[in-house]
Every structure is written in structure tokens, then in C-alpha cells.
């Protein structure tokens, strides 16, 4: 019996394996149509988006630069108002230095407002074109014309907008499920676009048939997706991206005194210290895990530059350099050219470097710090000590954090001296969280814009320091992902 069965199987195998039958010519025509259409549209979309994406990035970058670089002066202005109520510093507020700053700042704001209104009016002029094209999408599109390569620009732009900004939710839930399933990281061309567009009226049978015959299955029922396994088992190289990002930031120090330290010292410091420059440069690895999750690690180089002003004068500056290894987990999703992502995790500072000075706590009443009052009659004093935007860059490059002539050395701690520096050289752990958008520029390159918040969990000060200091950072990260 068993032999007969084996013989039965053998005859079938011999007769049916290796046979060939020519398929009808229409199959090749359909294959060609399906692939050519996708590529032509993808290339044209790519050209449009390259131009649009570059302009958008430049605009955002410019706006961010204005926000972060120009922020310093306004902080000073704000602080001068806060200090008015304190009798000891009333003179400082009345000092003619700050009104000057205010004027300069107002003039600058007016200029920015003018530029902004110009930009708005330009974009208004282009608006009708977009509205027209959008309304075309609602009407029936001639697919045959599209296949023949006659793609009207209006329709192209409209469908481009449709595909990039919103996934059309179709009536058929099974169809939506299928789109979600097909939407993979590997879609080199905007795969979704082609199919979304064709879906309702597609003359291409396989896609339609596949969907029509699809049955809903609960997650547990699908034990093995054989085809997907074949192509989604990607190598390390295929899952990895180099990640570079620049993050201009605002920082806030959270300082708390130990039991025997007067909080006045920290108040004085927070009043005097102005953060003039804070940024992080990131270089690392972005590694895609399963199910849209990803892992990021690498090196963050963070630099903070501060200037101390007392009585309206710059007295000294300092600089913190941190090297940190971030370990972040995230989730990302995409729709054709645009996507979003969210990530969070911890970072460990492995090397901290400090230069310059910070205010010293005056412990001994017999050793008062002599803070010289500025000579109000001296005409040049404002110009001489005015903070300039270039100071931050110049001081960092020249490594010059020298004290002003008017600052008593006994009133400050020199951060470059081990016995005076109260800060840790490593071991600070930061909490990170961020969420942003991604623009998929090409197969290899995408750009991200990610509002980012991080904060040190433990104090950056040594145990023997008389205060705790934590830093919180907020900024927008401008990044690039480059595939190997």
C-alpha cells in the first residue's frame, strides 16, 4: 500500500515538475504598466519634494537660528525688570545700559515681523493654484491618461499632497489593513502612493483580487508570513543608518542648596549667569528593530557657554563641555514622503570638561568679596563691557574666560582647578525624550526635525559641593539619517 502511494506520488512529480506553458502576452503588459507607472511618478514626486524639502529645511533652520542666537539679550532685559524690587540692585535697573538693549531688540523684532509678512504674502499668491489642484482630486481622475505618461501637473501635485500628508482611509477595512501591512520601511519608492491612488478604480487585477479575497485574521491566527519573512529578514547593514543631528538648545539650571548653604548664593548665581550658547551635536547609529521600533546610540557632544554679568557688566564667562552616550528607543511610522517618530531613553555623560569661572560662595564674613561698582561717570564703560554676540564664539575658540578687571578673584571659583571645581567629570545620567517629523528625501537620506527635552537625573556636582545642580535642556534637533 505504502509503495503504491509512493509510486502514485512519483508519477505525479515526474509529470508535473519542470513543465512550462507560455502565459498570455497581457501578463507582461500588466507587469510593465504596474512597474513603469510607479517609477515615473516616484521620480517626478522626488524632484518636487527635493526642491520643496530643501526650502522648508532652510526656512526652519533660519527661524531656529534667529530664536536661539537672539535669545540672550532678552533674558538680560527680563532680569533687569525682576531685579527692580530689590533695593540693593535698584541702581542697576536704572543704569542706562538696559534701555539700549531694549531698543535694539525692538528694532530687530520689527525687521523679523516685516520679513514674516513678506513671506506670508508670497505664499498667499500661490494659494489659488493649490486649491484648484486639490479640487481636481475630488473629481474622477483619468487613469488611462496617467498610464500613457500624460500626467497633468495639477493632478500630480494634488495627489502628491494627498499621499504625503494623509493616508486615505478607504471604506473597506480589509483594504486599510492590507495597506498597513504592506507599508514597510523598505519601500524605496513611495509604494503606498501608487497603490492608494489606484485602489478604487484600478484596472490591475492582482491587487484588487488579492484584497477582495482577503480575510480578516486576528493576530494570533497568523503564525507565519512566509513571503514577508523572506524579504524582511534584513541584515545589520540594511537596518542601520548613520545619524547626525544638531540641536540648538535653551538650558535651565535647577540649583538647590545643601543644609549649610544660604540660598542667596544660588539666587545670585541664577541672576548673574546668562546662557549665551547651548547646543548638542550628535553622531551615531540609528538601528531599525521590528515593528517600526528603532534604537539609537552614538555620541552627543554638548556645549554650554555662559557669561556672568554683575551690575550690568560682563565679569567673566564659563564653558561646560559634555560627552554623552545616549541609549534611546523609539517608534516611527511613515506615510510616503513624511513620517513621525517618538523616542526616549537615557544618556550617560562619560566625560565632562569645565573652563572659566562661577561665583563663589562667601563663607567667611571676614573675607568679603570686593565687587567694584562701575563708575557711572565713565562714558565708555557701557561699550567696554557690553556683551556681544560674537563673545561666545570668540571666547570658546580662544579659550579665553579671563576675569574682567573689575572682578575680584576671591569672589569666583576657577573651574579649571581641580580643588575649586565643584562639578563631576563623568557619571551624570540624563533622561531624554523627543518627538518629531521625518522627511524621506531619497532612498538613502532622510531629514528629521525633532523637538527634544532632556534633563539630568542626578546632580552634576561632586558630593563635597554645597549645592546640587541639575540641568534641563530644551531644543529642536535637526538631523539627517544616511543609509550605509
Amino acid at each position, binding site marked *: 500500500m505504502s509503495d503504491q502511494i509512493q*509510486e*502514485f506520488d*512519483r*508519477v505525479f512529480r515526474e509529470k508535473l515538475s519542470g513543465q512550462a506553458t507560455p*502565459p498570455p502576452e497581457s*501578463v*507582461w503588459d500588466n507587469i510593465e504598466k504596474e512597474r513603469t507607472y510607479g517609477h515615473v511618478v516616484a521620480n517626478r514626486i522626488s524632484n518636487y519634494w527635493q526642491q520643496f524639502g530643501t526650502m522648508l529645511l532652510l526656512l526652519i533652520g533660519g527661524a531656529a537660528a534667529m530664536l536661539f542666537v537672539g535669545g540672550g539679550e532678552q533674558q538680560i532685559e527680563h532680569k533687569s525688570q525682576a531685579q527692580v524690587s530689590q533695593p540693593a540692585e535698584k541702581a542697576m535697573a536704572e543704569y542706562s545700559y538696559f534701555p539700549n538693549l531694549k531698543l535694539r531688540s525692538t528694532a530687530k523684532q520689527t525687521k523679523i515681523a516685516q520679513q514674516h509678512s513678506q513671506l506670508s504674502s508670497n505664499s498667499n499668491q500661490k494659494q489659488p493654484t493649490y486649491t484648484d489642484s486639490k479640487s481636481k482630486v475630488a473629481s474622477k481622475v483619468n487613469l488611462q491618461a496617467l498610464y500613457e505618461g500624460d500626467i497633468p501637473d495639477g493632478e500630480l501635485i494634488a495627489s502628491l499632497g494627498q499621499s504625503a500628508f494623509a493616508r486615505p482611509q478607504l471604506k473597506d477595512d480589509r483594504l486599510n489593513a492590507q495597506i498597513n501591512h504592506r507599508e514597510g520601511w523598505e519601500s524605496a519608492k513611495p509604494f503606498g502612493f501608487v497603490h492608494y491612488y489606484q485602489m478604487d478604480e484600478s484596472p490591475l487585477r492582482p491587487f484588487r483580487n488579492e484584497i477582495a479575497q482577503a480575510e480578516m485574521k486576528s493576530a494570533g491566527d497568523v503564525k*507565519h508570513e512566509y*513571503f514577508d519573512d523572506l524579504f524582511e529578514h534584513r541584515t545589520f547593514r540594511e537596518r542601520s543608518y548613520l545619524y547626525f543631528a544638531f540641536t540648538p538648545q535653551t538650558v535651565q539650571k535647577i540649583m538647590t542648596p545643601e543644609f549649610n548653604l544660604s540660598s542667596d548664593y544660588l539666587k545670585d548665581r541664577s541672576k548673574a549667569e546668562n546662557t549665551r550658547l547651548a547646543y548638542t551635536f550628535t553622531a551615531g547609529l540609528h538601528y531599525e528593530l521590528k515593528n517600526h521600533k528603532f534604537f539609537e546610540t552614538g555620541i552627543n557632544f554638548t556645549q554650554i557657554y555662559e557669561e556672568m554679568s554683575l551690575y550690568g557688566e560682563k565679569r567673566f564667562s564659563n564653558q561646560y563641555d559634555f560627552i554623552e552616550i545616549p541609549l534611546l528607543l523609539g517608534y516611527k511610522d511613515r506615510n510616503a514622503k513624511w513620517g513621525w517618530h517618538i523616542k526616549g531613553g537615557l544618556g550617560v555623560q562619560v566625560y565632562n570638561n569645565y573652563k572659566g569661572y562661577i561665583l563663589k560662595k562667601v563663607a567667611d564674613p571676614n573675607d568679603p568679596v570686593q565687587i567694584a561698582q562701575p563708575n557711572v561717570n565713565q562714558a565708555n564703560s557701557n561699550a567696554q563691557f557690553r556683551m556681544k554676540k560674537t563673545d561666545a564664539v570668540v571666547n570658546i575658540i580662544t579659550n579665553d574666560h579671563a576675569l574682567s578687571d573689575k572682578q575680584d578673584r576671591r569672589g569666583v571659583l576657577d573651574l579649571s582647578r581641580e580643588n575649586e571645581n565643584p562639578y563631576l567629570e563623568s557619571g551624570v545620567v540624563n533622561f531624554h525624550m523627543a518627538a518629531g517629523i521625518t522627511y524621506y528625501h531619497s532612498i538613502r537620506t532622510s531629514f528629521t526635525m525633532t523637538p527634544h527635552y532632556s534633563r539630568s537625573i542626578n546632580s552634576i556636582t561632586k558630593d563635597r559641593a554645597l549645592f546640587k545642580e541639575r540641568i534641563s535642556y530644551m531644543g529642536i534637533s535637526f538631523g539627517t539619517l544616511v543609509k550605509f
Partner: protein
Amino acid sequence: MNEKKLIQACLQEKKAAQRALYERFSGKMYFVCLRYARHDMEAQDMLQDGFVKVFDNISKFKFQGSFEGWVRRIMVNTALNYCRKRSFKDEVIGLEDYQDQVVSSKAVSNLSEQELLKLIQQLPDGYRMVFNLYVIEGYSHKEIGEQLGISESTSRSQLAKSRKWMQNEVTKLKMSKHV
């Protein structure tokens, strides 16, 4: 043009090379699809879908092993995806009504390829997949179970039932020829 050059030209999206590749394999692959499909139209859909996947993913072929085997694997998986979506659960064919009878291999070998193909196409989806994978592709029950998401024992019983059904059909054909 040898196979390697043809694949490299396809990687550069050269139309002529894609057409040549299609010409080279479409006949065999169409026959593979016919074995899994219920009718010609469905086989054409499978073939079209399969070749689009081949061209889209040809960069993933690492020149290790046979290219024909790689293409064939894609076709089989595409066909399985089609069939899998028509679940086994809906199939009611009452195989239990068939008599246990063993047909000699000679009776089978007397049938033409087209007749055998028709027989396979008439099998219900689940039975057809198991029969194709086990008898013609040479997969084990364990592999079939993994691919179709069914247990090994289900695969065995499906195969037994499909053989029984085939043997009945062969007998019928044989009798009708004698008549």
C-alpha cells in the same frame, strides 16, 4: 546573455533585460502558478504579482544558489499568499464519502499533463496547497505546517484526503475513457 549579466542589467532597470528574464522563466513559473490556482485567470494574477516582486526585489538576490530556485520560491510564496487568504475553514467537500481504493501508478501515467493539472486545480484550496507542496515541491509536513500555519497532523490528514480524492477522480476518468 548569461544569467548573471541578465540579472545585473535588471538591477539597472533595463527594459530589454527584464523582458528577456521574463521570457526565460515565465513559462515554467506560469505552470507552477497553474498548479496552485483554481483557474487560468488566477494563475495569471499570481504570475504578474510574482514577477513584480521579483523585479522589485532583485537586488536582494545574492548570487548564492540557483536564480531559478529563488524566482520559483517567490512564485510559490505569492501563490500561497493567494490561497491562504481563502481559508481552509470554508471548504466542505465531504471526502468521507469517497471509497478507499488504490489506483495503480500506470493509470496515472496514462493521463496527460493537462489532465493531471486539471485534477489538481479541481482540488479544494487547502488540499491543493498541501498536495503541491508535499508531492511536487518535496516539502516535509513540518515545513508545510510552518508555512501554512497549520499543525503537522492537519497537513498529513489533508494530504491523505487529497490523495483519496485524486484516486477517485483518476478512476472516474479511466472509466469514462473505457466507456
